[in-house]
């Protein structure tokens, strides 16, 4: 099973893998996450770990880094058997990880975050001057210009991610695991990260790179291991793959036909915009997060919010749900003025919102899929009018089927689901409330091509059925594929609203972002 058809065999013969896992099996309650998975990492290579949501990528990483213990299988580090009881032991063995969600302390300074646990000491006490000096050195080496005494939380998610990588690098890793490191970075930051990764590779570090961006795999990686449904699909050198064959390995055949969506969106752009708006925002704004903006949203229309990270996309969307309260402006629904003081009021007006922070603001990890799905509807009804258990189960079964949520077990704990499946549960929760306006903030971030296509198709279908959708995404291609109109934000200001016909291209949007005006 593991025998790869690699022409690079002589290469592997020379050098022993620094990390070799075979026959890894991991069972969670109700989910068989990994079943006989193998992975080999050689020094001085960038190795991509690919697979759809729920394929077992995150679980495999957690097994390699000591977060979970495998039920079966062997782990060899430098040819010696190694099992890690906790992440610290894995770190001591030279395996460092940077996770998708930044796992640092936002209340501590950048310097403290980089060196926490390994602070330089003097006379047994922490030498704070040396901490700052060392942290500053590390950052300069990597061309990062940051105030090391500023609290980490004061920086954007992207910068926090880079700090996390700096920290992991400084632990002097033999193996560096990067789990979705680029999902919240902009282009320049990605380039910065890649140059760093290449430098580390040349120093002989083995890098395991998990991403959903295919082009990044081809740009950076030497070898690819593909997982599918918790099993090893195969190991390939990058030379024997094309983007199409890679996707085929990942999803096992049929390639999503997303082009149709795009065609449709373009054709219907004009007609969807006609008529009375469903939701109308006038001079809606909040000090410090987004300047007052006007926006008309029509039933059956998809509006994309485009802009760079930190341009106010998310903030603008949150105001329409009352997730943050606006301090200026007015929102009308069906022409009637409404007050969106809190999410509850927005829900009462049939507005729904999926946050970009799935883990902290979306799902309840401890609860089951069923409980997560019925929650918004139940909250709207109040606790005195419970949805009967039979009804809950029926609704859950229906949505598990409709969105292909895996595992299809309503009583599985949500924390055991992959990111994409958690996102689907979140969508199901809101679709159950039959929203008239659905606000989706980065619904496809950190999830794989298959689930991404499914969610995009779902958005198109919802709009066709008359739901208005506000779609926030960092990926311009995705925004343009789905939207009938695109609102562009720049520096917390909505600078343009474009009807998405054939004249709108990513370049035109980028130009609008760059210049602050539609040319």
């Amino acid at each position: 099973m593991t025998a790869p058809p690699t022409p690079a065999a002589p290469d592997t013969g020379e050098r022993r893998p620094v990390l070799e896992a075979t026959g890894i099996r991991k069972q969670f309650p109700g989910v068989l996450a990994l079943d006989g998975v193998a992975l080999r990492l050689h020094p001085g290579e960038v190795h991509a770990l690919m697979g759809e949501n729920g394929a077992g990528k995150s679980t495999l990483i957690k097994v390699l880094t000591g977060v979970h213990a495998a039920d079966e299988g062997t782990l060899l580090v430098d040819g010696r058997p190694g099992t890690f009881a906790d992440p610290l032991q894995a770190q001591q063995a030279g395996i460092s990880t940077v996770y998708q969600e930044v796992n640092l302390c936002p209340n501590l300074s950048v310097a403290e975050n980089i060196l926490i646990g390994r602070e330089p000491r003097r006379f047994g006490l922490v030498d704070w001057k040396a901490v700052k000096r060392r942290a500053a050195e590390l950052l300069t080496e990597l061309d990062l210009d940051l105030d090391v005494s500023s609290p980490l939380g004061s920086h954007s998610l992207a910068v926090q991610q880079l700090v996390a990588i700096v920290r992991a690098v400084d632990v002097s890793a033999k193996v560096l695991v990067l789990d979705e490191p680029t999902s919240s970075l902009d282009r320049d930051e990605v380039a910065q990260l890649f140059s760093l990764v290449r430098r580390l590779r040349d120093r002989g570090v083995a890098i395991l790179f998990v991403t959903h961006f295919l082009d990044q795999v081809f740009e950076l990686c030497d070898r690819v291991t593909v997982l599918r449904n918790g099993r090893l699909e195969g190991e390939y050198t990058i030379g024997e793959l094309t983007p199409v064959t890679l996707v085929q390995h990942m999803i096992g055949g049929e390639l999503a036909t997303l082009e149709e969506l795009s065609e449709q969106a373009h054709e219907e752009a004009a007609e969807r915009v006609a008529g009375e708006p469903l939701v109308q925002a006038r001079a809606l704004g909040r000090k410090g997060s987004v300047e007052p903006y006007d926006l008309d949203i029509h039933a059956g229309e998809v509006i994309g919010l485009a802009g760079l990270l930190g341009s106010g996309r998310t903030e603008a969307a949150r105001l329409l749900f009352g997730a943050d309260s606006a301090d200026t402006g007015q929102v009308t629904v069906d022409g009637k003025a409404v007050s969106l003081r809190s999410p509850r009021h927005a829900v009462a007006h049939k507005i729904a919102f999926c946050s970009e922070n799935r883990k902290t603001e979306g799902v309840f990890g401890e609860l089951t899929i069923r409980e997560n799905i019925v929650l918004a509807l139940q909250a709207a009804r109040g606790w005195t009018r419970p949805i009967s258990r039979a009804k809950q189960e029926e609704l859950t079964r229906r949505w598990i089927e409709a969105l292909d949520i895996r595992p299809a077990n309503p009583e599985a704990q949500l924390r055991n689901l992959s990111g994409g499946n958690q996102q689907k549960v979140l969508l199901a929760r809101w679709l159950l409330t039959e929203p008239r306006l659905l606000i989706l903030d980065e619904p496809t971030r950190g999830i794989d091509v298959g689930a991404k296509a499914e969610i995009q198709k779902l958005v198109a279908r919802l709009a066709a059925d008359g739901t208005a959708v506000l779609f926030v995404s960092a990926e311009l291609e995705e925004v343009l594929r789905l939207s009938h109109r695109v609102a562009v934000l720049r520096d917390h200001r909505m600078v343009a609203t474009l009807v998405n016909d054939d004249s709108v291209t990513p370049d035109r949007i980028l130009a609008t972002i760059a210049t602050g005006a539609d040319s």
Partner: protein
Amino acid sequence: MTNPPDRSARTGRPGAPTGAVPGAVLKRLAGHRLLWPSLVLLALLLGNLAFTHDFFDIRVQDGHLYGSLIDILQFGAPLILVALGMTMVIATRGIDLSVGSTVAIAGALACEHIAGSADPGSAGTVLGAVAVALGVAVVLGLCNGLLVARLGVQPIVATLILMVAGRGVAQLITDGQIITVRSEGYHLIGGGYWLTFPFAVLLAGAVVALTAFVTRRSALGLLIESVGGNPAAGRLAGIRAAGLLTLVYVFCALCAAVAGLMISSNVQSADGNNAGLWIELDAILAVVIGGTALTGGRFSLGGTVLGALIIQTLSTTVYTLGVPPQTTLVFKAFVVVVVCLVQSPVFRAKMSRRRGRPHTRSTGTADAVGRQQEVRA
């Protein structure tokens, strides 16, 4: 000293074959979250049996049930109630330190009312006393709830205010004296019998059953677990957290007030200084032993009842073993530490690893052999 935990290891084994009929049942039992609290309680009870041979005896006398087990239930009833309210608060990620003071205030108010009335024995007087105590408890709960839910004060701070001030209020009500009352009707609540059972046990059982029914049959339990498990996500899902939190603190205060009535009724007096002293800590401990995490979210009412019974059994054990008064607290603390360690998955994993593979394997196979023989028989 180490007897109770030692016994638990030994007594755990004869218990196994009883469930060994189909393997699946055993497996489900082993994974059940009430398993460890149940085993600990069983071990404590059996430990007592070793020292007091009539420990499990229950006899009927004058139409009333008597026995050590009945005593544990009766004296444990107030703690069960306080811990019940505490469970709901802790499930929302909060904590209520003021329950001990509420216990004292409720008892003081009721006794004051009865002592001041012309006919202390009449049903009207007793009901009036109960109503006054519960009414004030609602106000106290509202104070806590509003501080936490509306003003955003941290629960530990918000309830600390009432914990300190409440003792003073109780003393003001009793004028710093111990009020003694003679009222048969009032005595029923904490010390009387009804249908051969101690009334306090029936009352606590009814409140637990009602709470379980309401939280699990309505959506209250789910919403509380959501708010406690992830407050930010709860807000975005449109849950009215403020209302829920207030409700939970009022419920907790009511439970504490009923417990306060039981305690003062049992001794037919109100002591503003000592009634319910430190009961908040026993209640928190009971909740945690029962498997509800202090970080909020999932709660277990059954676990809390078991936890409260474990603590009460421990207190009874201290008396029946004749532990010298000056070492009572140390003994209790020691057993609690052992109980917590036994329940900790981390500790259990460490112990089984440290004991080494050969040992665990040998006991494992011995167990398996025993089970096979059992099945064949």
